[in-house]
Every structure is written in C-alpha cells, then in structure tokens.
C-alpha cells in the first residue's frame, strides 16, 4: 500500500505541477458539492470528494484500479461549485487521469485519439497537410501565413474540429465570411497549426499537451500579428491560461468576444431577419471556465427577429455537451457505463425551453447536438447552429 509520503511526493506533487492553485487540495471540506453537481458523479466509484477522502486515508492505490474516472468530462462544474476553490478539474481530475494513463488503464478510444494527436497533430488522425483545405472557395482568399509572408492584425487559430469535421467546417467557413465582411485583416497557420492540446491535457496527457503547445508556440513565433482569435473555446482556454506558463504568451480572444467588441460595425450589416426562438448553450470553456457569458448572447440579440430564451441550466450552471476532457473520444466507453448522453439531456432542455434553434459557440457542439437531436423524441425540428452561421445568415454572406 502506498504511504502518505509516497503520495506527498508523487501524486500530490503532480497536482501542484498541473495547476498553481494545487495547494488548495488541502482545504477540501468534504462537503460533497463537487460530487453532487457532477453530471456523471452518480456513476463514479470515486467522485471528486470521495477521491480526496481516499487520498487522505492513504488508499491511493484503490483509485488506480477503477475506470470510472474516465466519466469526467472536465466541465468545471465541480470546480465552480467548490466553496474552498479547490482546482478540481485541472488539478485533481487531470492528475488522476495522468496516473491512470501511465498505468495503462486507458479506454481504447481515448488511446486512439491521443495516438493520432501525437502522430498527426489532430485527434481525428486527419492529414496535417489538409488542415487548411476548408478554405477552398472562400473569397477573398483566406491568408495562409506561410504563403503571404506579411504581418496580419489577427492570427485565427482555427482548431481541430473546425478545420476537419465536415459539419463544423460549415461554421468555420461562415466565420471566415463574417470576418471578410468586416474587413478584418486575418491569417491562419494551416498545416503549421497543431491541436491546441487542451482536451488531451485534461484527459491526463500533459506531456503530449506540452509537445503540441511547443509546436504551436514555434509557429506563432515565426509570424507577426497583434492578437490571436480562436474558434474553439478549448484552444482559447489553452492559449490564455496554459501556454503562458510554457513561455508562449499572446493576447487571445474567442471569436464571440472579438466580434462583440465590433458590434457598432457589425450591427448595420445584420440586415436579414432570422425570425426564430433560439436558446444559447454556454460552452464549458467559454462560460464557466473563463467567464464569457454575455458576448455570445449580445451577438445573438443583435440579429433582427431573433428571440432568445434560456434553458434550465444556463450561464455558470450550464450543462456540458459531453465532449470535454476527452469525452469527445470516450463516447462508446461513456455510453456503456451511463446509457445516457449529456448532449441528449441538453437537447431535451432546449425543447422544453421552446427553442427552435440551439445556438452554440464551440466546434464540439454542433455535431454532438445534431446527433442527439436524431434520437431525442420531439427534437426532429430542432436546428443546431453555430453563432457564426447565424451571423452569416443575417448578413447574407
């Protein structure tokens, strides 16, 4: 059995290394808020509070024998609910996943995504050379920084799913057209862009995260730009909160933040009515983890004709789509354990709220919610749209 000292040295040190606030682990009150608010807490043999109790009882080895930790979708709900402000998601959960990963206790699906990220720089295993293929046909042409060799105002970090997933590409192209219509001087890295690595980090692969971050850092260093914008809230979180510790420091905004700042310029262009009742799903890494709640809503409200309603879970209490922290690569595993999907729960909430459109701002969400709408009763008519798509529609671009 592991001794307190061993835990102090290894696991505890790991938590400290993962996050500067790791020290707060000692302040856990065992109140159980974290385990109660966790969307999959009821399926975990050791939800966060019990996990800390096990650590304190020197039973760390038992934690390593379970696989229910892989139900964690890194949604930050526990972290947000903790009265002692223990960094549960990035500290405790990411570190325990790392221990399981090193011990070889990893579901196959997740292994494949990590292997692909190592090999190709994206979890899907797509050709790195095709990362900018989505730009084909966009006018004016999207600037590839390696090609244009000139400074730009904005470096757009497109991200994995926005670059490759056929459904998400529609939103990516819409955003490119919106940026063009606003006359934004932007460029992309294309084949030089690697996965941001944030979900891999939260799935326990910190070493991989560092490799990916270093590669992106190197690419950033080659070009001149004033700021980075991202499509993906996970990339936003990584570049804003994690890259600086690795010496990669740039001002970064999520695209909703960036566009909301240009509302005066944007509003006159939103000419066509989109007369629907829409609800907005707060992505975990935009809302709860980074406090961006109002900008996306302001953009939606600027669209003429659109009525915005809220779902039961909103803002700080938003419900995860199930894709974070490796969830995107654990669909089969989680289905086997849970026989429910968070995305379906969310789609039901959207229906109950009377929404015709479910607006999203994260590339994980469009495919997940559209998939869920296929199986949820009465959701056949629900349309899932990225905010960028709705703006483009109203602008007629």
């Amino acid at each position, binding site marked *: 059995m592991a001794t307190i000292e061993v835990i102090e040295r290894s696991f505890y040190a790991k938590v400290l290394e993962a996050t500067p606030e790791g020290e707060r682990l000692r302040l856990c009150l065992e109140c159980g808020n974290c385990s109660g608010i966790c969307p999959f807490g009821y399926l975990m043999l050791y939800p966060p509070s019990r996990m800390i109790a096990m650590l304190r009882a020197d039973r760390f080895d038992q934690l390593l024998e379970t696989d229910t930790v892989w139900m964690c979708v890194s949604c930050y709900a526990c972290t947000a609910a903790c009265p002692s402000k223990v960094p549960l998601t990035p500290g405790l959960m990411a570190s325990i996943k*790392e221990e399981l*990963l*090193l011990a*070889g206790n*990893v579901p*196959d699906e997740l*292994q494949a995504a*990590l*292997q692909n990220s*190592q*090999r*190709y720089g994206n979890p899907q*295993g*797509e*050709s790195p*050379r095709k990362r900018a293929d989505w730009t084909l046909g966009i006018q004016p042409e999207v600037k590839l920084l390696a090609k244009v060799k000139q400074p730009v105002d904005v470096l757009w970090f497109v991200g994995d799913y926005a670059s490759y997933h056929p459904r998400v590409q529609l939103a990516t192209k819409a955003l490119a057209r919106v940026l063009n219509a606003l006359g934004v001087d932007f460029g992309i890295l294309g084949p030089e862009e690697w996965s941001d690595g944030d979900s891999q980090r939260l799935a326990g*692969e*910190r*070493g*991989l995260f*560092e*490799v990916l971050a270093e590669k992106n850092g190197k690419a950033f260093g080659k070009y001149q730009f004033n700021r980075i914008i991202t499509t993906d809230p996970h990339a936003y979180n990584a570049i804003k909160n994690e890259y600086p510790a690795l010496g990669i420091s740039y001002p970064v905004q999520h695209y909703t933040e960036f566009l909301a700042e240009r509302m005066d310029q944007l509003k006159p262009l939103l000419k066509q009515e989109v007369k629907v009742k829409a609800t907005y799903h707060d992505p975990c890494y935009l809302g709860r983890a980074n406090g961006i709640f109002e900008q996306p809503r302001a953009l939606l409200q600027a669209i003429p004709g659109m009525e915005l309603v809220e779902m039961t879970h909103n803002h700080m209490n938003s419900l995860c789509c199930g894709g974070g922290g490796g969830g995107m690569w654990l669909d089969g595993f989680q289905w086997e354990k849970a026989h429910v999907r968070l995305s379906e729960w969310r789609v039901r909430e959207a229906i109950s709220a009377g929404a015709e459109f479910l607006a999203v701002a994260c590339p994980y969400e469009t495919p997940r919610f559209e998939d869920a709408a296929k199986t949820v009763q009465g959701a056949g008519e629900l349309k899932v749209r990225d905010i960028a798509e709705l703006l483009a529609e109203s602008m007629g671009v």
Partner: protein
Amino acid sequence: MNIIVLAKLVPDLVEELTIDPGGAALDLTFARWIINEFDDHAIEQGILLKERGGGTVTVLVPDLDGADDVLFTAAAKGADRLIKLGGDFNGVNNHALARAFAAVVKELQADLILTGVQAHDDLDGSAGPLLAECLQMPYVGYVSGVSINDGKSLLRKEYPGGLLAEMEVTTPAVLGIQAAEQPPRYVAVSKVRQAMKTSSIEEQDASSLDPCGGPTVGRMFQPEAAAHATMIAGSPDEVADKLVDLFKELGVL
C-alpha cells in the same frame, strides 16, 4: 528467452500518395513514414511475452525517417535493445530487407522472431517468411496469440470466418503476427521522452541490399475512384432483380 521483433516503416496512407515522374514507383520525396501496423502488433506481442515469461526484447528497424521514434516508443513500452539498420532503404523490396535483416539476426541467438504478417506496400511477399527461409527457421503467419516453453511455441493461427488453429512450432521460429493478444498499448509522451534519455540506439550497417526475387514494376497508377454511387433505378421489383444480379457478380450468391 530472446525475442527479436522486426519492424518495417511504410508510407502513411493518411497522406495522398503520388506516383513519381518515371511512372513506375511511388514518389516518396514527401512521404510520411509510419510503423507498419502489423509490426506494431508484433512489438506488443513481444512485450507481452516478456512480461509473462521474462527475457529480453530486441527491436530492429531499417533506417528511415521516423525509425528513432519507433525505437524509443518500443523502449518506453519495455523493449530492451534497439537496433537501427543503416542503408538506403528508400523503396527497397522485402527480399532485400529480409536478407539484410537475416545477416544481423544471425548473430542475435533468437528464440523467437516476431514481425507483422504483412504490410500494405508488399509487392514481393512479406518480410517474415522470406527471413525465415534465409535463416532456415520455420514460419507461421496470421498469428494472434503466442506462448512459449521448452523449445516449442504454441500459437494461434487465424483462418477466415473466425476459425482458429492451434499450432506447435519448434523454436527458434519466425512468426507473422496478425494481431497481438491485446491492442498495442498507448505510451504517454512523458514516458517516450524518458526513454530517449535512458536508452540508446545501436546502429549497424546492412552488408548489402539484394532485391533479387522481387518483380519489376512497369507502371503504377491510381484506380479511378467513383465520386458518387452508381444509382440503380426502377420499380422495387426491377431494383431487386438488379441487386440479385449484383450479389451474384460480387460472388455472394
């Protein structure tokens, strides 16, 4: 027990393949080399055997872009000895590869040699059985389970339709691995980085590369891919007739 695993690097099919200007070979100028997936299973099987019964695992790879990665990853999984075979392996065939491997393996006193049952770029048979004959060892391929004791190896060979045969082979022997008993494990980047610091790669030069026995390709080309399905039209009755004809043509009726 001394287990040797031979791994081959092959062009990654994730990238578009192109034919070189001569028209008779792949253009490998920009190829991304990855481990042959069956060889990855062979490494896993080697490590599993070692974990179960002790011994050492030596991994041999021809020197192509990515060879170091393959070797250090194998070390992170538990391989003991890493050998990189120097020479111009770009576009080399399996007959040449097997002869070059044989010269090195002869000196290693192997009990068991594992390699992938095939690779997607094989055009002159697979490396395993060619090597076995060079070494005068028995060969069994399509293997998906191995145990070893008393100078004999007991293995499972796969046949179509899920039928398995249990076979006994005297060792030393060469086995062509179809699948390891468990899928190749994932090793965390931190472990691979660790292996880079703690293990070293031995380099040996291939004495010669003799491709005799492989065919000469006159022309390479890409089959035309249909962009859209050929639509079968008609009444349900007519469509069903056409589908039955199609099933016959495809050999299932």
